[in-house]
C-alpha cells in the first residue's frame, strides 16, 4: 500500500510527445482516473508507471521509492488490461496462483489466498474453468483477482470495463469501487468514458495530447473546468457570452425553462426523451447556429418540438472559461 508520485514524466517517440512533463500525486488509498480521448497518452502514462516502458525523462515514485529504472517485475503492481490478458492455457485458479507461484509462496497458503481472491470477485465455483469458457465480465473479474491476490502496492487499471456492454459496465463500476475501497489500495484507472471517471473517482486527471489539463475532484472538474477542452470532454457544455467579452460555461442541468416569465426567448429545436431526463436543444432568438442544450427532469412540465420557451440561469452557475 503506497502513494504514487510522478515528477515531470515525459515520453517522446521521435518528436512526438506521448506524455509531456506530467506531474501527479496520488495519495494512499485514493482512486484517481486518467481521462482523455484516444491518443491523449493515458495508456502510455500507465505503461510508464507499470514499468512496461521507460520515460524519456522525469521520475516515478511508488511509496516514496524511485522506481523509474526498476523493471516491471520489481514494482509489485497489480495491472489489469482492457483485453484481460488472462493466460489462455491455464485455468482460472492457475491464473490467480501465477503471481503467488512467482513469489514462492507455499502451496497451501497460495491456494487459500487465490480462493479468497476469487471469492472477493464472486467467482468461487469457477476455479477449474478456462478463460475461454467465461463471459467478458467474468474474465475481467479473474484479471482483477489475479491483480490483487498478491497485495500489490498499487493497482493500475487500463480501461478495465471498456470491452463490456453498458449494463454490465455499470454493475462492475460499483463492484470495482467497493472492492477498491475495501482493499484500500491506491489505484490509477485509465478511461475515455467521462461518466465512468465521474462516478468512480476520488479525483480525475484530464489528459490531452500528452499534457495534463486539470486534476480535480469530479464535481469540480465538471462544474469548474480549467479550460474549454475539459469543459467539453466531461459532458455537454453550453457557452454564453459575458459582459467583459469572455465566455462562461453553464451545464444543461443548470438551465431553467419556463413557458412564460423572465429570461431569453427561444424555440425548442429538439426534445429528446432519455428516461430519467428530457434533453432540449434550444435555438436562442438572435443568436448563432450552435444550439443550447438544457436537461430537465421528466417529472416537470414538458415542451414539444417547435414550442416557444423562456430560458434562464443563475449567475452563480456560470463558470468563466478561456476561449
Amino acid at each position, binding site marked *: 500500500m503506497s502513494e504514487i508520485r510522478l515528477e515531470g514524466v515525459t515520453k517522446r517517440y521521435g518528436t512526438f510527445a506521448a506524455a509531456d512533463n506530467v506531474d501527479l500525486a496520488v495519495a494512499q488509498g485514493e482512486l484517481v482516473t486518467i481521462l482523455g480521448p484516444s491518443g491523449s497518452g493515458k495508456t502510455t502514462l500507465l505503461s510508464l508507471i*507499470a*514499468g*512496461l516502458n521507460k520515460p524519456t525523462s522525469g521520475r516515478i515514485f511508488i511509496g516514496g521509492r524511485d522506481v523509474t529504472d526498476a*523493471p*516491471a*517485475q*520489481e*514494482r*509489485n*503492481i*497489480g*495491472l489489469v*488490461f482492457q*483485453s484481460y*490478458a488472462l*493466460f*489462455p*492455457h491455464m485455468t482460472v485458479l492457475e491464473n490467480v496462483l*501465477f*503471481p503467488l507461484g*512467482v*513469489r514462492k509462496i507455499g502451496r497451501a497458503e497460495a491456494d487459500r489466498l487465490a480462493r479468497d481472491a476469487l471469492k472477493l470477485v464472486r467467482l468461487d465455483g469457477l476455479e477449474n474453468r478456462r478463460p475461454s469458457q467465461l463471459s467478458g465480465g467474468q474474465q475481467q473479474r479473474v484479471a482483477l483477482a*489475479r*491483480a490483487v491476490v*498478491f497485495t500489490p502496492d498499487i493497482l493500475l487499471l487500463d480501461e478495465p470495463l471498456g470491452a463490456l456492454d453498458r449494463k454490465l459496465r455499470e454493475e462492475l463500476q460499483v463492484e470495482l469501487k467497493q472492492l477498491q475501497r475495501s482493499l484500500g489500495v491506491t489505484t490509477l484507472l485509465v478511461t475515455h468514458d467521462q461518466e465512468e471517471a465521474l462516478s468512480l473517482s476520488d479525483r480525475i486527471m484530464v489528459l490531452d495530447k500528452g499534457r495534463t489539463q486539470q486534476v480535480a475532484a469530479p464535481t469540480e472538474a465538471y462544474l469548474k473546468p480549467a479550460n474549454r477542452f475539459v469543459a467539453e470532454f466531461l459532458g455537454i457544455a453550453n457557452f454564453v457570452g459575458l459582459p467583459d467579452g469572455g465566455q462562461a460555461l453553464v451545464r444543461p442541468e443548470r438551465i431553467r425553462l419556463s413557458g412564460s416569465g423572465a429570461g431569453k426567448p427561444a424555440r425548442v429545436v429538439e426534445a429528446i426523451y432519455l428516461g430519467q431526463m428530457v434533453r432540449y436543444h434550444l435555438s436562442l432568438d438572435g443568436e448563432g447556429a450552435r444550439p443550447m442544450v438544457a436537461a430537465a427532469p421528466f417529472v416537470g412540465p414538458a415542451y414539444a418540438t417547435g414550442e416557444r420557451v423562456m430560458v434562464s440561469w443563475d449567475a452563480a452557475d456560470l463558470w468563466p472559461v478561456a476561449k
Partner: protein
Amino acid sequence: MRGQGFGFIAPLLVLMFVAFNAPIVYMLGLAFWEKGRGFTLQHYEGLLDAPVYLRVLGNTMRVALVATLANVVIGYPLALWMRGLSNRGRMIALSLVVLPFWVSILVRTYAWIVVLGNGGLVNRALQWSGLTDAPVSFLYNELGVTIGMANVLLPFLVLPLFAAMIRIDDRLLQAAASLGAPPRTIFWKVFFPLTLPALAAGTLLVFILCLGFYVTPAILGGGRVPMISNLLDTLINQIPRWETAAAISTILLIVTLLIFAAYRRLDRKASA
C-alpha cells in the same frame, strides 16, 4: 444445393480415382496377394525373415528423428528471433526462410555437396582455422543426409511456429512481467506452452516428410545410407520384387497415417 454440380466434378473424381486411389488400392492388394493362391501374409513373413528390411525401417526412423530434432533446435530459436523483428525485418527473414522452396530440391541438394565436400567450403574453413588437419567427411553418411534433410524441411517447421508465435499477444507477456515473473519464467510458463501445439504439429509434419524422403538421402547418402524410399527404389526398379515393396509401403503408410492422426489432433488443438 446438395448434389448440384456433381456432373462438373465427376470427371475429376474419376481421374482422381483412376490415377491416384486405384494404384494405392492395387499396391495394398499386391502385398496380400500371391498368384494362384489368393490371400496371403507371406510377404510380411518374408519381411520378418530378412532382418535387413526391419533394419532399414529402423534406420529411416532414426535419421528422420535426428533430422526432426535438428529442425526443432534450429527452427524454434529462429522463429522466436523472427517474432522480435520489425515488420520489415520479419518480411525479409520470412522470404529468406521460404526462398529454398523456390529452388529445385535437386539443385539445393547438389549445392550441399559443394558446401560439405572434402574440398568444400566447410572443410576448407575448418582446416584453415586449424580445428582439424584432415577433412571431415560430411557426405555419403548419415550426417550429410541429416544436414540435407534438416535444411530442406526447415520451412515446414518455422512457418507454422512463426505464425503461432506472432499470434501471442504481447500484453500476455507484459501481464506476466507485471505479476512479478522474471523473463525465464515468462518464457517457460507462458510463451512456450502457448507455442507447444504448433511446435508439436510442425514437428510431426516434418517427421512424416522425413520418413518418405528420397532425393536428398539418395544424393547426399550416395547409396550408403539406406532409407526406406531408396530401398523401395531398389526393390522396384532393380530386383524387382514388387510384392515385398508393396508390403513395406503398406507398413510405411500405416505408420504415416498414425502419425498424421496425431498431427490432426494437435493441429485442431493449436487452432482452437
